[in-house]
């Protein structure tokens, strides 16, 4: 146990590697170790499903009496087009771009898609993006502790989820350190979010590496749509206090801007041994400019910066007897800044191109190690009709991630984290092409394409897809797809040397567990087979079904190595853990989402997710490694259910009830129990400008655990009161 926490400290901190910690904390006494190792490897998670359907909650504006608006206002009301004016299906008209990088609608997407609208975010009462995502069918959202979440679809959840692509306004926010997301650093003004597009299954053909099990694409509104002021603030537990402001204005005729700022203070959670000291404070400011000088061109400029103090129980290896480790309750500092510029040019109704450039700086300063990552990314895409029946989209991109990892703090004789080399440029050069072919007009479409990319670690990768969409009627669509995707290696696999506290922690000759990089580590691969059906049996009901079979190859396993003496001033040993591509796996699942607008005032929504994961480590591996690696199959829930009722009690009073059930996770030691939880939100529109709400979270029990690990955090019952004033 102590080793675990040690490790926690010495690795990237609580936020990252709970599983790794486990890993390192393991006792060299083989088998047990192996078990601990397992968590790092894939864990199965259930993927929920997208909800189709035009009957998702519309923007509030929709409820205004349109006949009372003046003409100018009327022509500013955003609408959700019910059907493309070319007589297309009216099924699931919500727009999105994540599927093929082209604007399309859910009903016409040959993928498992779900859209969270601004209104759905508001009604959820959630104050952070991962908490919003709990409603998304097909996503497994598990809170690791106060400052960390595991979010995955179609299995492999954990605090080191590494097969999901996450973007904010076109900027990639998953991290090259472990190919995963520090969800505590992904923040936007939720009131300014246009929509969150979630795709389950691979989207690598247009998006590239890491879009293996799913894509989460957070899209904020154009500055033109966020004019005016907004102040929001609230408090409660565990989010003690948070607040934000936004102001949007106009300069001249075509230039719109907004500026925003926000901050929060989150309390620590507790684990089996008391407080985890994992509370955090976050502050962020940013701006966005949208300039539309003519009909054809749109220029967007965005910039954000944040700073965050995150608590952690740090444990650091040292060569100083007798403990050979020291532990402190400490803070780590996350900070970041980004600048993005995008130029979209419309050539005609069916052709356009887009050029996007961004720079992103991410820094994580722990007491023993500093990570600094500077990313430069350039992306171009162009679409045009090749013939009347073929729409081509192609593009290319270049990304450079300059990664610097350096030990800091007092010299303890041994580094918790060391990078070989300490500074490196990781380059990704990529191109994609995709062709959408209309086989039968308005009925049958075939999409084929592939991504080709070259990265510093594994060289050339290809990621093709073929997707068929059949729309037999305006209210139904059937789709099927076969795709290949890869999860390219991250720093952890390729160049980080991570050393935990010694095991046993006290002794004359310490033995340090050490995760060692493998420069020969290859990309993990996936061949995915998917089938889906969407139907809108009545105007008020929509259903979405998807099933999949995923075949993974070259999955990573953590293999214990031979005890080796450490060349140092003091006698010591290293117990190495090697990372290798030595496991295959299959996952099968079904996702069902249903939406029912019972009346104009009452909406019900349900999602059910089933997942079956089977992992097969190579039989030649030590039995302990096999056991631990394959345990990941039982670290994502097999069954998940989400139910939501959104009810407008009166014109001003809203009641939202959200219940969820998540299966237990037997792949962890100790196992994580199944749980039922309930959130209730009451919202009151006190006046035209002022809205008050109270959210009760996890009301059914005092606390529950969502994800296993060394010292699992108890997610507490919570309450949060919030007020929003707009003018």
């Amino acid at each position, binding site marked *: 146990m102590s080793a675990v926490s040690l490790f926690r400290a010495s690795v990237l901190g609580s936020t990252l590697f709970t599983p790794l910690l486990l890993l390192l904390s393991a006792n060299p006494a083989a088998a047990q170790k192996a078990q601990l190792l397992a968590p790092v490897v894939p864990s199965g998670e259930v993927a929920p499903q997208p909800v189709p359907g035009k009957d998702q909650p519309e923007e509030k504006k929709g409820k205004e009496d349109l006949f009372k608006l003046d003409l100018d206002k*009327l*022509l500013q*009301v955003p609408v959700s087009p019910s059907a493309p004016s070319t007589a297309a299906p009216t099924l699931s008209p919500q727009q999105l771009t994540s599927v093929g990088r082209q604007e399309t609608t859910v009903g016409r997407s040959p993928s498992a898609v779900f859209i969270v609208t601004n209104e759905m975010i508001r009604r959820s009462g959630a104050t952070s993006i991962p908490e919003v995502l709990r409603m998304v069918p097909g996503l497994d959202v598990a809170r690791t502790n106060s400052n960390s979440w595991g979010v995955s679809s179609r299995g492999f959840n954990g605090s080191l989820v590494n097969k999901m692509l996450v973007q904010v306004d076109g900027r990639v926010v998953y991290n090259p350190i472990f190919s995963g997301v520090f969800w505590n650093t992904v923040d936007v003004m939720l009131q300014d979010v246009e929509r969150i597009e979630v795709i389950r299954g691979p989207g690598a053909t247009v998006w590239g590496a890491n879009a293996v099990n799913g894509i989460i694409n957070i899209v904020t509104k154009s500055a033109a749509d966020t004019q005016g002021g907004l102040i929001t603030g609230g408090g409660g537990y565990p989010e003690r206090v948070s607040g934000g402001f936004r102001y949007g204005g106009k300069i001249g005729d075509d230039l719109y801007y907004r500026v925003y700022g926000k901050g929060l203070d989150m309390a620590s959670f507790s684990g089996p041994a008391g407080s985890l000291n994992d509370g955090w404070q976050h502050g962020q400011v940013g701006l966005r400019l949208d300039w539309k000088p003519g009909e054809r061109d749109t220029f967007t400029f965005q910039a954000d910066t944040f700073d965050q103090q995150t608590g952690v129980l740090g444990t650091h290896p040292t060569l100083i007897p007798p403990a050979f480790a020291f532990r402190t309750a400490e803070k780590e500092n996350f900070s970041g800044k980004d600048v993005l510029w995008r130029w979209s040019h419309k050539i005609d109704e069916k052709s356009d191109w887009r050029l996007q450039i961004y720079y992103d700086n991410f820094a994580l300063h722990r007491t023993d190690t500093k990570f600094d990552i500077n990313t430069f990314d350039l992306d171009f895409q162009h679409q045009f009709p090749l013939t009347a029946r073929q729409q081509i989209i192609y593009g290319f991109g270049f990304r450079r991630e300059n990664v610097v990892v350096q030990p800091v703090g007092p010299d303890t004789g041994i580094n918790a984290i060391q990078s070989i080399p300490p500074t490196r440029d990781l380059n990704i050069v990529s191109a994609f092409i995709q062709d959408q072919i209309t086989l039968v007009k308005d009925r049958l479409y075939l999409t084929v394409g592939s991504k080709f990319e070259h990265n510093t670690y594994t060289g050339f990768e290809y990621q093709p897809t073929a997707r068929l969409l059949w729309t037999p009627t305006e209210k139904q669509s059937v789709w099927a797809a076969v795709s290949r995707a890869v999860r390219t290696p991250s720093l952890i696999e390729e160049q980080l040397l991570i050393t935990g506290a010694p095991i046993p922690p006290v002794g004359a000759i310490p033995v340090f567990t050490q995760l060692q990089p493998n420069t020969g580590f290859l990309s993990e691969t996936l061949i995915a087979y998917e089938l889906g059906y969407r139907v809108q049996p009545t105007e008020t009901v929509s259903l979405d079904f998807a099933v999949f079979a995923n075949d993974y190859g070259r999955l990573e396993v953590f293999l214990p190595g031979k005890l080796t003496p450490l060349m140092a001033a003091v006698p010591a040993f290293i117990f190495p853990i090697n990372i290798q591509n030595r496991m295959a796996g299959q996952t099968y699942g079904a996702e069902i989402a249903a939406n029912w607008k019972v009346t104009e005032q009452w909406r019900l929504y349900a999602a059910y997710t089933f997942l079956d994961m089977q992992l097969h480590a190579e039989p030649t591996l030590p039995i302990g490694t096999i056991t631990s690696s394959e345990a990941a199959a039982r670290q994502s829930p097999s069954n998940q259910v989400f139910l939501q009722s959104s009810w407008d009690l009166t014109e001003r009073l809203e009641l939202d009830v959200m219940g969820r059930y998540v299966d237990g996770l037997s792949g962890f030691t100790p196992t994580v129990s199944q749980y039922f939880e309930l959130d209730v939100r009451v919202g009151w529109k006190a006046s035209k400008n002022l809205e008050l709400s109270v959210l009760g979270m996890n009301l059914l029990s005092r606390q529950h655990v969502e994800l296993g690990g060394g010292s699992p955090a108890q997610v507490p019952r919570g309450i949060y009161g919030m007020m929003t004033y707009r003018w």
Partner: protein
Amino acid sequence: MVRAPSWLIGLLALLLLAVGSLRSDAQGTDEYGVKAACLKFFCHYVDWPNNAVPGDDKMYVVGVLGPDPFGDHLDKLGQQTVKGKKIVVRQFKAIEDYKPCHILFIVAGADADGRLTKALATTKKAPVLLVGDMEGFAQRGSVVNFFIDDQSTVKFEINTDAAKRAGLTISSQLLRVARIVKDAKETK
């Protein structure tokens, strides 16, 4: 044993939805709500010659040609009053049913091309404000045509040639917010 409850819940959820699917509230979408409200403004900002429609001293007649996409919004439009005159809504399945209107909305869809062609022929030179809902309809001779712009808001274009032909006077208030187009070359 862990699974039983969750399956059960899933099943219940589906049942609930299945029951739900038995009832149906036809709803227009926001898009058509806005378009319906625009139709009211057209009544307000367009001047028709007297006796364009029988009984037009007391009412504006708005016709909808094709399967109704408006739902409730059409009923609401029918409750509106403009310049002291009631708006009366008439629905026509096909152009053969057509009776004189101030405004004739041509419903979008696969058959819309045919509808427009026939409507143009039937209402030739009559003082009717033909309103299209498909790309290119204004250029083909409908006076007004709706479209959705990049900001996902409803906008419309006005073919001033067509308005002149129909003998309609369109207020600058309307022209100000519209995109002005002309006949396409191939149209007479």
